[in-house]
């Protein structure tokens, strides 16, 4: 599904290399986790994959089902089925959550040559998905993420994912700032979306999210590279010993 080869990325403004030859392959239907210390480049990877400005790819490639991602606009990547759940979801005052979601869904449908959803059908769809995530109607009416608690913002990200039905979902520190109950709700939402034709890349600093979203494969990232890949037991190793041993081992 997602194939990243020898990816080198630097900050446009500062000429500072951040990703330094990253290789990663995520197979269809699988859940991969990336763990790593702060500053190792995890968010940068998620932004570069989804097309944020400010980064320059100096080497390497990233493909989604054989389609080159890096040459596309962010909206094109979304239409291809890529979704990033933001570490810090953005507040947009004055734009209703529903308007935002419907605009996004219909823009994608239109770009794929599908019919746009009517207001009525859309409402039905969102209500159904929102119920599963315990998002109430009031939250849907409010402006995008404005006045949402940390947990509400993250649930709203998962709601968008549920409505847009992407095939490749990247979750950047979706557990950060959440208490255990909120995290469970988010994890349940993600687990409900697991499907044979969908893959996940779950980025996290801590192991605890992975108790709820069980990964098939765990990668350890440090200084812009994947330094180790293993099964779920790798996450437990980090939990018990921290990153120090793994980092030392890599050197």
């Amino acid at each position, binding site marked *: 599904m997602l194939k990243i080869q020898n990816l080198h990325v630097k900050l446009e403004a500062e000429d500072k290399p951040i990703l330094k030859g990253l290789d990663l392959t995520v197979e269809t239907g699988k859940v991969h986790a990336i763990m790593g210390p702060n500053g190792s480049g995890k968010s940068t990877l998620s932004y570069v994959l989804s097309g944020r*400005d400010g980064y320059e790819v100096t080497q390497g490639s990233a493909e989604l089902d054989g389609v080159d991602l890096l040459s596309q*606009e*962010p909206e094109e990547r979304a239409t291809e089925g890529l979704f990033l759940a933001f570490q810090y979801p953005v507040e947009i005052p*004055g734009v209703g959550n529903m308007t935002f979601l419907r605009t*996004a869904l219909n*823009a*994608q449908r239109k770009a794929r040559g599908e019919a746009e959803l009517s207001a009525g059908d859309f409402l039905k769809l969102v209500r159904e998905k929102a119920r599963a995530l315990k998002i109430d109607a009031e939250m849907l009416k409010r*402006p995008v993420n404005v006045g949402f608690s940390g947990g509400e913002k993250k649930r709203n990200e998962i709601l968008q994912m549920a409505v*847009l039905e992407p095939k490749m979902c990247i979750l950047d520190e979706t557990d950060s700032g959440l208490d255990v109950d909120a995290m469970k709700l988010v994890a349940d939402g993600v687990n409900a979306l697991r499907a044979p034709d969908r893959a996940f890349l779950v980025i996290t600093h801590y192991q605890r999210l992975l108790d709820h979203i069980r990964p098939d494969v765990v990668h350890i990232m440090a200084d812009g590279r994947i330094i180790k890949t293993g099964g779920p037991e790798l996450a437990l190793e980090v939990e018990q010993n921290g990153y120090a041993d793994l980092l030392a081992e890599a050197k």
Partner: protein
Amino acid sequence: MATEAKLRDDLDTRLRDAPRGGFTQAARVAARARLLAMGLPGRRDEYWRFTDPAELNAALPVAAEDPVAEAPLSADGALALRFDGGRAGPVPAAPAGCDIGLLGAADASDIHWAGSIYGTLEASGQMPVKRPFAALNTVTATEGLLLRVTSGKPVVQVEYGVGSRDSDTYLHHCIRVAEGAELTLIEAGRAGARSNIVIEVDLAPGARFHHIRAQGRDADRRTITHIFARISAGASFKSFTYGENGRLTRNEAILDIVGDHAVAHVAGVALGNGAVQPVLQDDTVFITHGAVGCESRQVYKKVLRNGATGVFQGKILVKPGAQKTDGYQISQSLLLDEDSQFLAKPELEIYADDVKCSHGSTTGAIDETALFYLRSRGVGKDRATALLVLSFLADAIAEIEDPALADQIVARLEDWLGLGEAE
């Protein structure tokens, strides 16, 4: 700029053309003297540094392209009338408690209720800042609404047309709302190739006045408007202006709060795209707090692109003794490119100690993080930008109290942004 002799000649011609012996005569003569004393403005005048008055000063207007046809702003049950190039259409039959007349028809009569308003609020609004084009209007205008509400809540809907391609239109509306009565005034369209509109509003204690105005989408507009209001105790004045493009648009609001616990809100949204013609959009506001416990609010937002210029000059003056004043002012611009500019001059002048006044002015670009967030959900760049413009304007739009009118303004806005077909 016209020389003084030329101005004098010109004013004399205008006075000759105006009705003689009517209830406005004394006000016209006084306005002529005021204007001769102050002269027409130039770029050196403090409040004309950002906006070049040359096209307003010119003896004759430049012929203008026809305005883009637009649906009028409308409200259910409104009393509708038109002015085309300054010429009034038929006057609708007014319900009890509402008296609608025309300046053109009443001007010759020597006694009229509007006699205590015409040119009077304008004259007192000349201190401390000169408003020469308002004085010129008082000298010149031969048509306008004379609107008096003594009870009830009428809605009056005025639609403007240009009349001809080189029309030079002067309209002067006089409004009085009696104690406990309420008036909604809607204005839409462009009144001339060049137009100069003065509205004088006298609000009795407890009166309520809502004003909503849409200045058309056409680019070829040169207009100056003034609203002078006298706001008595417990009265409420609310005015909202929506404008698109326009070569030169200057809207002045001069609000005099004279009674305790009164409210004055003015707000505006202006969208300027200088791609086809230059755009200059200027809001100049002066609010005087002369009583205790009053609240004033100024909320102005401008979205500018392709070299458009936005100007905001807003002042709050709190007179001695006007304690417990709550004055708020915000002016913000969103520049969609680096060619456009926003020039702001916020001012506070406070002579009372127990007041709460704040002002803020910002100039910014589209938030890149928010833009990326929207695009990452599949929304194309143009549409994402448009949504962020709506987001930027939201709290100014929220100043419109009537939801049906707010919807009509939002529809125009979405149309301008190319979002029309989405909803």
